C-alpha cells in the first residue's frame, strides 16, 4: 500500500475526485465505443500510424482545441475566485495550482500545437511539396507532444499539479518549498513536448529550404511560409536553452544537484535567466505564425496583394534576431545596474519598430482593396486595434524604470493577454475558419462564427482592460484573494463577466463545428474564398498526395496568377507519385516516452531505465529498417482527380463565399 501512497493527490477536493470519476468514465466510454463500432483498426491504420502532414496537422488541431478547453476552465475558476473580495471558492493552494496549470497548458499545450497544426497543414501546400522533409520525424514530434500533454494533464489526479507558476522560479520550485511531485511533472512533461517542438523546427526549416516547387525562390514564398520559417529559426535556437534548463531543474529536484539552489554554490537567478532566454523568443515563436495567418487572410479578403512584401519579410527576420536580445526585460527588478536595464530597455523597445511596420503594411493592404467581412477577416480586423494596444503597453513595460511599478501586477497580465489573445488566439480561430474547407471540404457556418467573434472580442475587452487599471492601483498578479478595502472588487467583477462571455464564445465556436458538420453544404469547390496563394491550387479536401502534378511558380501569389493572368501552374503529364510509408513506431515511442516520463516523475527507477532502453531500441531499429516508401500509380491519381472534377461541375458557378454578406 505504501507504494501507492505516492500517487495520492496531496491537496484533494471534491472537484478533483469528480474529475477522476469523469476521466475514468470517458476513457471507458471511448474504449467501449471503439470496440462496439469496430474502429480500432481504422484508428490505428489511419491516424495512430499516419505520417501524412495533413492528418498530423489535424491531430494537433484537435489537441489544441481540447487543451483550450482545459485551460479555459482553469481560467474561469481563477476569474470566479477573484470576482469578489475575500471569496472562498478556491483556497490558496488550489488557486496556485490552477493558475500554474492554466499558464503552462495555454502556452505549451494549446498555443504551440495550434501553430504546429497550421505549419503542418499549410506549409507543404504553400510551397507545393508532397509532405514535410522528414515525415516520420514529424509523427514522432506529434506523439512526443501528445505524451507530454497527457503526462501534464494527469498531474492533477495523480500526485498533484505544479504550483509554482508557469515560470516556476527557483527556489520556490525547488524541493524545499515545493515538495509534491507537481513540479516534476512540469519539468518532465515540458521537456518531452519541447523535444518534439525542436524536431518540428528542424523539420520545417528543412522542408522550406529544400522542397519548394520549381520557380519558388525564397522571396516568392507566401507570407505564412515565411512566418513559419522564421518561427522555426527561433525554435531551433531557443528550445535547446529550455531543454538544458529543464534538465538542470530536473536533476536539482530528483538528484539533489545544486544548480538553482540558494546554497552550496547554486544560483536561483540563473533559472530566471535561462527561463527567459527561452521564454521571450517563445512569445515570438507564437506570434510570428499568427502574423503569417493574418497576412494571408487580410490579403485574400481585401482582394489585393500584400503591401510591402519585402518589408514584411525583413521585419520578421529582424524580429527573429531581436527576440534574442531582450530577455532581461522580464526581470528588470532583479538588482542589476542601471546600465544593463538601459541596454535591454532600448533593445526591447526596438522590437516595436518592425512590429509597427507590419501593422501599417496590413492597413495598407486594405487600402484600395475590396474588403469582404468574412469570419476570418473579422478576426483580423479585430486583431489590428487590439494587438496595437497590447504592443504599446509592451513598450510601456519596456521602460525599465516605470516597469518597477508594473512588474508582477495585473498590468503585466493585461499586457500579455492583450498580445496573446488578439494576437495568437484570434489568428488561430481565423486560420481555423479560413482553412476549414481546405481540411474537410465544407465551410463553417458564417453566422454562428460571427456571433462567436463578437462574444470573444467584447468578452476580451471586458475581461482584460480592467486589469490595466487594477494593476496601476496596486493589484499584484497571482494573489488568490484581496480585501474589500483595496477597491479592486468592481473591476474584477467586470473581468469575470468578460471571462464568461469568452467562455460562451468558445462554446459557440465548438457548436459551430458540430452544426456545420451536420448542416453545411458539401462540395464548396476548390476556391471558396477567392484566395491567392498556392495552397488553394489543389482540391478541397486535399488528396493525400497534395498536388497531382508539381506546380510551377512565378510569384508569391501563384494561384492568383493562374486565375487572373493565365499563368500555367501545372505542366506536363501526371506521373507516379512517391509517398512515405505509414509507421507505428512514432506512436509506440510516444507511449514509451510517456511511461518514461511518468517513472521519472515518481522516481520509479526500474521502469525509467527500461523505458529509456526502449526509446533507444526504437531509434536503433529505425536505422536498420529499410523503407523505400510506396508509389501511387497514375491510374489511381487520375481516378481521384476525376472525382474532384465531377464534384466541381456539380457545384456550378456559385459566387464566391462571403462575397454577398459583406
Amino acid at each position: 500500500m505504501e507504494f501507492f501512497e505516492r500517487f495520492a493527490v496531496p491537496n484533494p477536493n471534491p472537484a478533483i475526485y469528480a474529475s477522476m470519476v469523469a476521466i475514468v468514465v470517458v476513457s471507458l466510454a471511448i474504449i467501449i465505443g471503439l470496440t462496439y463500432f469496430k474502429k480500432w483498426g481504422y484508428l490505428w491504420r489511419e491516424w495512430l500510424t499516419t505520417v501524412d502532414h495533413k492528418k498530423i496537422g489535424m491531430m494537433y488541431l484537435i489537441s489544441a482545441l481540447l487543451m483550450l478547453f482545459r485551460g479555459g476552465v482553469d481560467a474561469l475558476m481563477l476569474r470566479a475566485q477573484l470576482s469578489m473580495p475575500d471569496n472562498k471558492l478556491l483556497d490558496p493552494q488550489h488557486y496556485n495550482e490552477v493558475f500554474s496549470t492554466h499558464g503552462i497548458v495555454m502556452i505549451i499545450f494549446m498555443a504551440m500545437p495550434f501553430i504546429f497544426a497550421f505549419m503542418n497543414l499549410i506549409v507543404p501546400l504553400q510551397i507545393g511539396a508532397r509532405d514535410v522533409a522528414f515525415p516520420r520525424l514529424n509523427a514522432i514530434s506529434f506523439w512526443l507532444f501528445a505524451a507530454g500533454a497527457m503526462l501534464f494533464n494527469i498531474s492533477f489526479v495523480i500526485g498533484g499539479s505544479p504550483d509554482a507558476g508557469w515560470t516556476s522560479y527557483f527556489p520556490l520550485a525547488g524541493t524545499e518549498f515545493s515538495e509534491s511531485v507537481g513540479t516534476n511533472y512540469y519539468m518532465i512533461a515540458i521537456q518531452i513536448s519541447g523535444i518534439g517542438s525542436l524536431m518540428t523546427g528542424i523539420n520545417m526549416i528543412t522542408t522550406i529550404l529544400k522542397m519548394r516547387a520549381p520557380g519558388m525562390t525564397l522571396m516568392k514564398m507566401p507570407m505564412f511560409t515565411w512566418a513559419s520559417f522564421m518561427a522555426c529559426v527561433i525554435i531551433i535556437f531557443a528550445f535547446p536553452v529550455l531543454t538544458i534548463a529543464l534538465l538542470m531543474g530536473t536533476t536539482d529536484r530528483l538528484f539533489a544537484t545544486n544548480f538553482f539552489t540558494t546554497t552550496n554554490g547554486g544560483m536561483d537567478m540563473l533559472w530566471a535567466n535561462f527561463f527567459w532566454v527561452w521564454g521571450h523568443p517563445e512569445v515570438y515563436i507564437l506570434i510570428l505564425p499568427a502574423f503569417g495567418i493574418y497576412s494571408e487572410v487580410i490579403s485574400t479578403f481585401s482582394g489585393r496583394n500584400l503591401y510591402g512584401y519585402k518589408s514584411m519579410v525583413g521585419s520578421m527576420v529582424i524580429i527573429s534576431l531581436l527576440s534574442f536580445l531582450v530577455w532581461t526585460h522580464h526581470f528588470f527588478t532583479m538588482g542589476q545596474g542601471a546600465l544593463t536595464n538601459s541596454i535591454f530597455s532600448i533593445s526591447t523597445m526596438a522590437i516595436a519598430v518592425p512590429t509597427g511596420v507590419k501593422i501599417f503594411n496590413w492597413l495598407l493592404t486594405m487600402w484600395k482593396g475590396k474588403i469582404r467581412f468574412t469570419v476570418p477577416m473579422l478576426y483580423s480586423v479585430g486583431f489590428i486595434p487590439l494587438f496595437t494596444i497590447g504592443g504599446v503597453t509592451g513598450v510601456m513595460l519596456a521602460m525599465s524604470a516605470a516597469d518597477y511599478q508594473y512588474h508582477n501586477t495585473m498590468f503585466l497580465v493585461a499586457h500579455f493577454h492583450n498580445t496573446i489573445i488578439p494576437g495568437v488566439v484570434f489568428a488561430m480561430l481565423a486560420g481555423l475558419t479560413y482553412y476549414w474547407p481546405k481540411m474537410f471540404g465544407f465551410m463553417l457556418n458564417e453566422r454562428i462564427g460571427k456571433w462567436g467573434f463578437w462574444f470573444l472580442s467584447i468578452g476580451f475587452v471586458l475581461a482584460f482592460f480592467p486589469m490595466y487599471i487594477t494593476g496601476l492601483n496596486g493589484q499584484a498578479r497571482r494573489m488568490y484573494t484581496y480585501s474589500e478595502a483595496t477597491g479592486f472588487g468592481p473591476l474584477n467583477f467586470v473581468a469575470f463577466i468578460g471571462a464568461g462571455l469568452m467562455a460562451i464564445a468558445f462554446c459557440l465556436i465548438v457548436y459551430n463545428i458540430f452544426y456545420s458538420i451536420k448542416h453545411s453544404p458539401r462540395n464548396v469547390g476548390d476556391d471558396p474564398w477567392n484566395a491567392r496563394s498556392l495552397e488553394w491550387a489543389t482540391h478541397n479536401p486535399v488528396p493525400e498526395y497534395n498536388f497531382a502534378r508539381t506546380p510551377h511558380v512565378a510569384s508569391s501569389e501563384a494561384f492568383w496568377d493562374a486565375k487572373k493572368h493565365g499563368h500555367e501552374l501545372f505542366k506536363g503529364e501526371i506521373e507516379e507519385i512517391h509517398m512515405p510509408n505509414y509507421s507505428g513506431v512514432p506512436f509506440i515511442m510516444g507511449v514509451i516516452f510517456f511511461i518514461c516520463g511518468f517513472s521519472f516523475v515518481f522516481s520509479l527507477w526500474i521502469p525509467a531505465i527500461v523505458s529509456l532502453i526502449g526509446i533507444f531500441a526504437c531509434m536503433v531499429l529505425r536505422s536498420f529498417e529499410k523503407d523505400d516508401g510506396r508509389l501511387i500509380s497514375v491510374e489511381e491519381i487520375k481516378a481521384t482527380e476525376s472525382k474532384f472534377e465531377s464534384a466541381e461541375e456539380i457545384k456550378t458557378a456559385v459566387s464566391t463565399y462571403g462575397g454577398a454578406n459583406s
Partner: protein
Amino acid sequence: MKELFPVKQVGGYLFSLVLTIVALIVYFMDFSFPVAMTILLVTAFVQAAVQLVLFMHAGETEDGTAIYTNVLYGIIIAMVTIIGSLLIFVWDM
C-alpha cells in the same frame, strides 16, 4: 592523380593533430589560468571549424550558404546570450 589524392583532408588531419598537441601542452606546462584558457578556447574553436569545413563537408554542396548562415547566426546568438548574462550577473550587479 591530383584529383584522387585528398590533399585538403590529409592536411586537415595533420592540422587537427597539431591543434590537439598544442592543447595537450597546456596540460604539461605551467601557464597562468588566463593564458591556458585562451589557448584551449582558441584551439577548440579552430578544431571545430576544421571538422565542420573539411570533414563534415560544410560548404561543398549547394547548401553552403545556408549552413554558414546558420552557424554564424548560432554564434551571434550564443555570444549575445553569454555576454548579456555576464553583464547581468557579473559586470553590472
